[in-house]
C-alpha cells in the first residue's frame, strides 16, 4: 500500500468537492493558456501578414497613423489620396529594390452577405505588385491583357464568394461597370485573398481618380537603410511613411490594453483557484484529523503525512492543469471567433496558437502551483500531534 495510492483514494472521498476544485483550476488554466496562445498566435499572424505584404514601407497620404496601419494590413488602401507624382519622384531612388503603386477603392455591394449588403475591396495595381509577392500564383488565367483593360483578377476567397471563373463577367455596383475575370489567384493566406484586383489605370478611370494613389509599397535593397530613407521622405509634402515595425507596434498597441486587462483577470482567476485548492485540502485535512493521528500512531512520520497531503494537492492541480489545457484546445475556435469580433484588426492566420511547449509550460506551472498551494495544508497535517488528533472530540 503506497502513500501515492492513499493520496489518490483520499481525493475520491468527496468526489464532488474534488471535481469542483479541479474544474476551478481547469477554467483558470484554460483561460490563461488561451490568452498566452493568443499572445503568440496574434503576434505570429500579424508578423506573417506583414511579411506577406512583401514590402517594408508604405507611403500614404498624411493622416491618422492608426488608420494607415490598419488599412495597410487590410490592403494598403484608404480614403486619402496622394498625387502619382510622388511615385515618380521616389521610384528612381537607388536604395529601392522593388516599389509598387496602389489605388484602393471600396464599393458598397447591396447583393453581398445574402442581400444585407457589404463592401467590396478593389485594388488598382501594376505588374510590380506581383514582383513584391513572388509567392502569389495563378489558380487559373493570368495577367490583364492591357494596362487599361476592363478586367479583374480575383483573390481566392473573392472568387469563391463571387462564384466566378476566368471569362465570367462581374458587375461593379455604384459605377455600373462590367469587368471580365482575367484570372484567379491561389490562396495566399493573406488579405489579398479577399481583394478584387484591377489594372491601376482602370481603377483611376473608373472611379474618377486620375493620377491618384492611396499607397506606394517599397522594399529596400538594404533594410539597414530604412531610417535614412524615411528621413529623406519627411521633406515630401502631404505624405507619411509607415514602416512594418511601426505597423506592428501600432496594432499591438491597439490590443495591448485589452491584453493587460484579460491577463489580470486570468491571473486573478488562477489566484482564486489556488485559494480554492488550499481551502479544499485544508478542509479535507481537518476532516481527517483523527485518521492522520492514527497513521502517525501506526508509524507514519511527519514527512509521510506531509507527502500524502502535498501529493493530493499536486494531483488536484495537475488534473486541473491538464483539463485546462484540453479546454483551451477545444475552445480555440470559439476564442478565435470572439477575438475577431472585438479586435479592431484581426490578422488572417491562427489567432490563438496553443503549442505543445505552451501546454507543457502550463502543466509545469500547475505542478508548481500545487507544490506551493500544498505546503500549508501539508504542514498543518504533518504537525498534528497523534495523541491530540486521535482523542479529538472525545
Amino acid at each position, binding site marked *: *500500500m*503506497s*502513500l501515492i*495510492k*492513499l493520496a489518490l*483514494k*483520499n481525493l*475520491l*472521498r468527496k468526489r464532488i468537492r474534488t471535481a469542483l476544485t479541479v474544474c476551478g483550476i481547469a477554467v483558470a488554466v484554460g483561460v490563461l493558456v488561451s490568452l498566452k496562445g493568443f499572445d503568440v498566435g496574434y503576434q505570429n499572424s500579424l508578423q506573417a501578414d506583414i511579411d506577406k505584404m512583401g514590402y517594408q514601407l508604405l507611403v500614404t497620404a498624411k493622416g491618422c497613423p492608426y488608420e494607415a496601419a490598419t488599412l495597410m494590413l487590410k490592403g494598403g488602401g484608404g480614403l486619402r489620396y496622394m498625387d502619382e507624382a510622388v511615385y515618380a519622384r521616389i521610384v528612381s531612388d537607388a536604395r529601392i529594390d522593388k516599389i509598387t503603386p496602389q489605388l484602393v477603392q471600396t464599393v458598397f455591394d447591396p447583393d453581398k452577405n445574402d442581400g444585407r449588403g457589404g463592401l467590396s475591396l478593389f485594388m488598382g495595381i501594376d505588374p510590380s505588385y506581383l514582383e513584391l509577392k513572388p509567392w502569389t500564383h495563378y489558380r487559373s488565367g493570368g495577367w490583364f491583357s492591357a494596362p487599361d483593360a476592363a478586367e479583374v483578377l480575383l483573390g481566392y476567397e473573392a472568387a469563391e464568394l463571387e462564384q466566378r471563373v476566368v471569362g465570367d463577367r462581374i458587375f461593379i455596383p455604384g459605377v455600373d461597370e462590367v469587368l471580365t475575370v482575367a484570372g484567379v489567384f491561389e490562396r495566399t493566406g493573406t488579405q489579398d485573398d479577399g481583394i478584387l484586383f484591377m489594372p491601376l489605370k482602370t481603377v483611376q478611370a473608373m472611379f474618377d481618380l486620375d493620377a491618384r494613389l492611396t499607397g506606394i509599397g517599397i522594399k529596400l535593397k538594404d533594410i539597414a537603410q530604412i531610417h535614412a530613407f524615411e528621413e529623406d521622405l519627411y521633406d515630401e509634402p502631404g505624405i507619411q511613411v509607415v514602416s512594418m515595425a511601426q505597423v506592428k507596434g501600432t496594432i499591438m498597441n491597439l490590443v495591448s490594453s485589452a491584453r493587460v486587462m484579460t491577463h489580470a483577470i486570468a491571473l486573478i482567476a488562477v489566484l482564486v483557484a489556488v485559494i480554492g485548492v488550499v481551502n479544499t485540502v485544508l478542509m479535507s485535512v481537518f476532516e481527517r484529523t*483523527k*485518521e492522520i493521528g*492514527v*497513521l*502517525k*500512531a*501506526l*508509524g*507514519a*512520520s*511527519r514527512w*509521510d503525512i506531509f507527502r500524502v497531503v502535498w501529493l493530493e494537492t499536486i494531483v488536484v492541480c495537475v488534473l486541473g492543469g491538464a483539463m485546462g489545457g484540453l479546454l483551451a484546445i477545444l475552445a480555440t475556435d470559439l476564442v478565435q471567433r470572439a477575438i475577431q469580433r472585438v479586435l479592431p484588426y484581426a490578422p488572417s492566420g491562427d489567432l490563438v496558437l496553443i503549442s505543445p511547449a505552451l501546454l507543457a509550460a502550463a502543466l509545469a506551472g500547475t505542478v508548481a502551483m500545487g507544490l506551493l498551494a500544498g505546503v500549508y495544508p501539508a504542514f498543518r497535517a504533518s504537525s498534528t*500531534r*497523534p*495523541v491530540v488528533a*486521535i*482523542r479529538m472530540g*472525545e
Partner: protein
Amino acid sequence: MSMAECLIRAEKVSKHYRLGEETVRANDEVSLEVTAGGFYALTGPSGSGKTTLLDILGCLDTIDSGRGTAFGRDVSRMRESQLVTVRRGNIGFMFQDFMLVDTLTVRENVELGLALSRSPGSPDRVEEIIGTVGLHPRRGHLPKQLSGGERQRAALARALVSSPRVLIADEPTGNLDSRNSEAIYSLFKELNEREGLTIVVATHDAELAARAGTILSMIDGRIVP
C-alpha cells in the same frame, strides 16, 4: 525460572493538563512495568487516567515528570519525531471506534499498517494476519461494508501485521455487542497465550478485564491496589 523481559517501564510518571484555570492531573506519579508476554487490563471509571496512561505506554504522548523507558530506550524527554521510531514495529494500536481508513479495503488497511511501520513484510504476511482474525472472505471490502466486529478485527489485523511486541488497545469492545466482544476476547487470549503477544488494554468491560493476567485499577490518575 527466568525473569520476563521488561518492555515498557513507567517510573513516577505524571501528566497534567490545563483545563481553563484548573490543572488536571491525568496521571499522578504512576509506576508500572509491562513485561513480555503479559496481559494487562487497565480499569477504572471515566476520567481516571486510563487512556492517558495508555498513550504514554504506547509512546503516543510525552510525560511531564518521572521517567519512561520503552524497549530499552529512555523516552522521557523524546520528541514526537523520536517517539515514532520507538513505536514502529514495537507497538500496535487498537481504538474503540476502529479508526480504519474508510477509503481503503480491509487488505489495503492492513498493507498500510505494514508500510507505515517500516517492518519487513510480504503479501503473504498480510494474507496470513487477515486469516488469523478470520476476515479472509472480507478482505476486499471497505470498512463501511463490514459489521462492527469485523471492523475491529480488521483494526486488530492492521495492528498486528508488523508483528509488534506490544498491543495497546483502548476500549476495543466498547462499540461491540457481546458476541463480537467475545470474538475479540478470544483472539486476545489466543495471541497472548500462543504467540506471547504482550497486551495492554484499557476497558470498562469487566469480562474482558477478567481474561487479563494483571488487572490494574485506576482512580484519579493513580493505580490503586
